[in-house]
């Protein structure tokens, strides 16, 4: 079970959280302006890296806020977590244990 640091509540067990997939995939301001390919990209295509991944978590059984995290999908070690809306922090390989 992961230990996840909620930006508001601090380190909490994974049981309190739900996952939200890749972060920083903004909903287009005007979806009608997108053609089918671009729209399906937005709907379905996500990065799936073996390495540092920016992802969304919801502290569903805590403060219920959505936030973002950088996590190494190979080791499952978190690099950092940060509030929704904040830009993705720089991360380097050293960040990852």
């Amino acid at each position, binding site marked *: *079970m*992961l*230990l996840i640091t909620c930006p508001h509540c601090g380190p909490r*067990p994974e049981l309190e959280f*739900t996952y*939200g997939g890749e972060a920083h995939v*903004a*909903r287009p301001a*005007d*979806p*009608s302006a*997108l053609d*089918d390919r671009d*729209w*399906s990209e937005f*709907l379905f295509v996500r990065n799936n890296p073996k390495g540092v991944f920016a992802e*969304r978590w*919801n502290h*569903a059984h805590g403060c*219920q*806020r*959505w936030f973002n995290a950088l996590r190494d999908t190979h*080791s*499952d*070690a978190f690099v950092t977590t940060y509030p*929704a*809306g904040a830009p993705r922090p720089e991360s380097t390989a050293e960040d990852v*244990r």
Partner: protein
Amino acid sequence: MSRQPFRLAQGGRIDRSRTLAIRFDGETYGGFAGDTVASALLANGVHLMGRSFKYHRPRGLLSVGTDEPNALLRVDRGPGRVDPNNRAGAVEAVDGLVTGSQNRWPSLAFDVGAVNDVLSPVFVAGFYYKTFMWPRAFWDRVYEPVIRAAAGLGVAPADPDPDRYAHRHAHCDVLIVGAGPAGLAAALAAARSGKRVMLVDEQAEPGGALLHDVTSTIDGVPAQEWVARTIAALDAHESVVVLPRTTAFGYYNHNHVALVERITDHLPASETREAPRERLWQVRAAEVVLATGAHERPLVFADNDRPGIMLAESLRVLVNRYAVAPGREIVIATTGSSAYTAAADLKAAGLTVTVVDARLAADCVADTAFAADRGITVLPGHTIVGSKGRRRVSGLIVAPLRADGSVGPRRTLPCDCVGMSGGWTPAVHLFSQSRGKLAYDAARDAFLPATHAQAERSAGACAGDMALAACLAAGFAAGAAAAGLEETRTFAASPTRTGFQPMRVLPTDADPGRVRAFIDFQNDVTAKDLKLAVREGFHSIEHVKRYTTTGMATDQGKTSNMNALGLVAGLLDTELPRVGTTTFRPPYTPVTFGALVGPGKGALFEPVRKTPIDGWAEARGAVFEPVSLWRRAWYFPKAGEDMHAAVARECRAVREGVGIFDASTLGKIEVVGPDAAEFLNRMYVNGWSKLAPGKCRYGLMLKEDGYILDDGVVARMADDRFHVTTTTGGAPRVLTLMEDYLQTEWPDLDVFLTSVTEQWAVIALQGPRARAVLAPLVADIDLSNEALPHMSVREGFVCGVPARLMRVSFTGELGYEVNVPADYGLAVWEALWAAGQAHGVTPYGTETMHVLRAEKGFIIVGQETDGTVTPDDVGLGGMVSKVKPDFVGKRSLARPDLVAPGRKQLVGLETEDPHERLDEGAQVVRDPSAPLPVPMLGHVTSSYFSPACGRTIALALVADGRARMGETVHVTTMAGFARATIRDTVFVDAEGVRVHARES
């Protein structure tokens, strides 16, 4: 009861003042408190304890520890408390305990399965891949049943488990796994920091190897005295928890370590009924110290599996800890030094001991001298080429190794017990589970912790330190560092005989293709099986494991893995790491399902959510159905009524009089804020800006992919406040979705969401007489059509309770939904019930609700829709706003396939036979006589008997359905097909006048 002829006169940690008796295969044997089943049986001279998996070879104890592959027993602790595959050395003897051997018939001594042993030349590794293929049908009917019957060890429990199991989440600063010298020293050091320390050990008492060390001293005191003092010192610390009988079996992400504590199995049944049998601990540790010790390796030689042939250190444990003579005339066979300590202790216990050392004399001078000083005969430079005896070893066949490597003349050493030692394998299982990387250390012939993945340290034998003083010092340093102290110290400890010369298979003069030298005892994997695997091209150790099943038995290869790796490396003439090491997976030792389940069984398996009115329904004999986690009243049968009769009666009551229905499970969300209407505009397909306060509107919500997610009535309580309702099952995901968009996409909107699902009990009154029932209980709300028309809402008091009163209908009749604070729900329900008696008010359940709405063609999300259905598919395309620039799912509605012709559309169905009720899920076809695969037009989503129509009705999703009105189609039944006609979806009151109740 036999008198323990092999019990030594003195010594051991057993309590001779407390005798006990256990049963094994029907015989009763005496023992003492502190015995294990294995030590008690051996004290009585019982060596034959089991049969091997494949060849049914007679087997005795190999090891006193949890690495035991052979002596696996059925243990019977009373009705429902029978379980298989218990390691004899790990089961503590309890007075009256009943045990038995496994995998044999008719008896352990005479097992017909032993015929496999004769056929062993055929039953080699992977033989089943090469045959049993012809004739084809025989695999299922003949071959496999035979193989399955032969496989498996013990018998699965036949009854539900009456025992209780507990769970505990715990946190500590330092978790120390293993309470041997390294672990105890680590705990001593960590305890000084005052931080929270947990010390866990799988054995009945802490001390590890020190519990059978009768010669060493530590800091001037005998080893076992040092253990006692250390435990006392630890007990003096508030912040230290010591858990014996507790196995750390799993090392998961972020220092999450799973332990299982055995609480009652070592106690007499009388004392244990209320207490949990086992407890699963889930520990989140800031730092972990692994002091998990090492496992001794067997020697690989012909017939090395006879009962009485054990690991040398286990003999030492039996003599020193349990005061049991494993035999009278013992041969120690070794390629290393540690076995000489065992030999010395056995000798000191008065047993006859001879040592056979496969190392050349020059390589074991110090050891032979040590033995000579104690009057122990040593045969250095001798290999072992076989053993004698059937159900008990009677002799060991040895031969000198010549300088040229050839084997000299054989001689047989008579004996009744053999202790073998092929070196030591550090127990790196948990380290490997933590995903740390191992590195091969040629000098120690061991894989040792190298690269760490988590906040963890290994110390002592599991890190390659075999000497006592080194274990203590390393443990102390690790414990201190884990606790954030920069302390080290040295311990004055007796020297330890360490070091060994790895020999994968002992040299022999026999044809290696003929002899069977076992590597994995339980699975009967021999050296020649491994040779065959390599010959057939299986060169990765994972392939070898899977092909031969070596290391795959219940001991998970604790004694066999290194011998197998080494042998394969030798066969491939490559260095050992290139063959790879098998990655260890949890659990370290097998864990009871019950412990993992814990309290989560029966009523606590999964919550049953109940409404405030649930008890009333139960008292009225309601039949319930599960809906998501809720249980809801399904129907209210009267005496003698079946479901059909009850539902028909309930339906008529609503259409002709009045029914009362518990709708409390509906999801409810209070949407508050100046941007509330705009927020709903973005979430729903339809618009909300123009909805006036006091009015209600039906809302439809999509996922971003354009398919229907949920629906429900939304009431506007004020300009900036909406009372949103959702489906029962959809409540959590709708709120989650709304919060997601609000927080991450539109944080600029001034809106807050609050779930009020459980704040309000919801009582639906439906039917022409609904107003008559409700009116007397409503003080301050005008219920007239003019003041409170269909789809409107008012706040006021019902039975003096503040209420949100909605005039809405899911039945097509005049209807109200009374929302009152939940704790008042029952009282208001009962008041309405009482007031309704004069009007024949009838309680109805979800089935009737379903029938009534189906008669009106109202959809139920999740029944008419299934996650691939658009608003237009169910005839609600008209609801979709054409003016709103955007809402969730709007763009997807324009995707090619969602606007393509031929989509399935919701229609009504009437069967030719008015009494034929179609199966929900039945498929609709045009031509039932078409060849397979028969093209399908769609499927039935809802199907009921409709009392109002006096016939069955159905809803279905049918390709181009709205263009097929009047068409005859064929619908599958369990018997064949039924003819049905496609029609519109509204079966009752097509004009929709009843809901307005204008006549009143």
